[in-house]
């Protein structure tokens, strides 16, 4: 029993450290990929290939002044970034990253992950409302409408695969797709896959739905008044969410950590996640932002009916 607890703590620490480091590394990859897609070089001067840029940014974040604006609500302002970072890592506790590495196999795993990730949106919302800044307030309001729009799509899109599998545990979902590419859920549920991916973009505030801190419109949205490590926590939370969503998509639709021919499962899922992260960056380089009203239009008038239709059709096919 004691051994179990020790093991769990060890896993928690490893996951925390690995994904905090990965968040930094992903910023480097993001800057490089975006640069290449715009025929630029990206960071090149700090260290070999600009790799030490991450360290430079880290030092900058850690040594910046921890600043609270004059009329801000002090406590909420200081707590808000912790909510984002904490929920992002709590959500990871039910995600099986590679075979055998899961902190706790909850039997409602997918519900738990999505629920905690949705809670994470309280971070931007409270931050936007606490900072006594109109851009922050706009960012906070956008958080609310974004949350209300995409959560419906996430839930409806994930319902159809769950109906087929009959379990909410991510391990069961993974095992359902064992035995090669032809068993992946993306072939039987392509619509659910796209809906979930679109909702994932909204959930992680990635570019087509990057309304919360759209520089061109609301300066930096909810993060306008933040600096130093408090801003850094928003940042780490955002990238941790990016990884969680990528792992979820890989687990639910792309065959998870099942062996892929000669590739062992652990490497297979990492490859899938890397590809999905690349897709996230790729779309950021290619597609424009949408307006908040367009996001609501898309989620409520287009994606939600399609999701409902998908559930009905899945149900009919399963009955017949």
């Amino acid at each position: 029993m004691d051994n179990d607890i020790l093991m769990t703590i060890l896993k928690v620490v490893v996951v925390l450290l690995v994904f905090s480091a990965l968040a930094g590394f992903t910023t480097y990859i993001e800057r490089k990929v975006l640069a290449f897609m715009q025929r630029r070089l990206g960071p090149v001067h700090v260290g070999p290939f600009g790799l030490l840029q991450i360290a430079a940014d880290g030092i900058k974040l850690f040594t910046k002044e921890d600043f609270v604006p004059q009329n801000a609500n002090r406590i909420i302002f200081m707590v808000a970034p912790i909510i984002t970072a904490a929920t992002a890592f709590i959500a990871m506790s039910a995600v099986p990253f590679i075979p055998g590495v899961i902190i706790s196999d909850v039997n409602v795993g997918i519900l738990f992950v999505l629920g905690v990730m949705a809670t994470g949106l309280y971070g931007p919302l409270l931050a936007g409302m606490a900072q006594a800044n109109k851009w922050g307030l706009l960012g906070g309001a956008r958080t609310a409408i974004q949350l209300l729009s995409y959560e419906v799509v996430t839930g409806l899109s994930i319902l159809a695969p769950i109906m087929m599998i009959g379990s909410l545990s991510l391990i069961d979902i993974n095992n359902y797709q064992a035995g090669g590419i032809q068993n992946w859920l993306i072939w039987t549920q392509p619509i659910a896959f796209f809906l979930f991916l679109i909702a994932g973009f909204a959930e992680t505030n990635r570019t087509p739905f990057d309304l919360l801190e759209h520089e061109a419109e609301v300066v930096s949205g909810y993060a306008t008044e933040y600096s130093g490590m408090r801003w850094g926590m928003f940042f780490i939370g955002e990238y941790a969410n990016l990884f969680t969503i990528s792992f979820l998509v890989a687990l639910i639709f792309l065959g998870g950590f099942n062996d892929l021919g000669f590739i062992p499962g652990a490497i297979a899922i990492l490859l899938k996640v890397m590809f999905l992260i690349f897709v996230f960056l790729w779309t950021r380089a290619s597609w424009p932002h949408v307006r908040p009203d367009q996001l609501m239009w898309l989620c409520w008038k287009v994606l939600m009916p399609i999701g409902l239709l998908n559930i009905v059709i899945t149900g009919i096919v399963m009955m017949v």
Partner: protein
Amino acid sequence: MSYEDLKKHTNERSTGTNGYVQVEIEEYPKTGWEAFKQAMGRTLSMELFKGLGITFKIMNQALFKNQMHTVQYPIEQMPISPRYRAVHKLLGLLESGNNRCIGCGLCEKICISNCIRMETKIDEKSRKEVMEYSINLGRCIFCGYCAEVCPELAIVHGGRYENASEQRAHFVLKDDLLTPFDAIAQQIEYDGFGAISPDADQKIKKTPLAY
């Protein structure tokens, strides 16, 4: 496009319609049904994925086909036009290296932002000698009147545009502006205003009547 191509390209930059593409804009939908049809057509023709394809192609070109557009500035520098009007130079006499300026004061007079100042005196041979010549670059608008008006082609505009310094005054004393004696052989003569550009041959094009 590599740095070398870019260099060539900037030299050939002139009006022309090579490589222009006429963009066809289809009619805006008028009825709801037309708007629906347009939206469905665009969705089913995978327009978003075509966009992804374009960015991927660009990345491929940038990484593997030597078309990176970045000019890494302090190491690589873009060529500037030979007629570029940057920080002034005082040309020297080729034989003696002496200042060519005769101290007539025309540049001082014509300067519309009043930024040229010269101190002169009559020397022992009853010739006018320029003791100090300075240009306040904080005021200078680089109009080129001083170079245009100079009867001896002594004050001209040079190509040195990198004037980052702790003080503007670092560039503009007579000693800084005057061509040093050991560099007098490399001194480029200024043809005066109205002369054709030194790289005119490269820029020449057929007149429209010729084709």
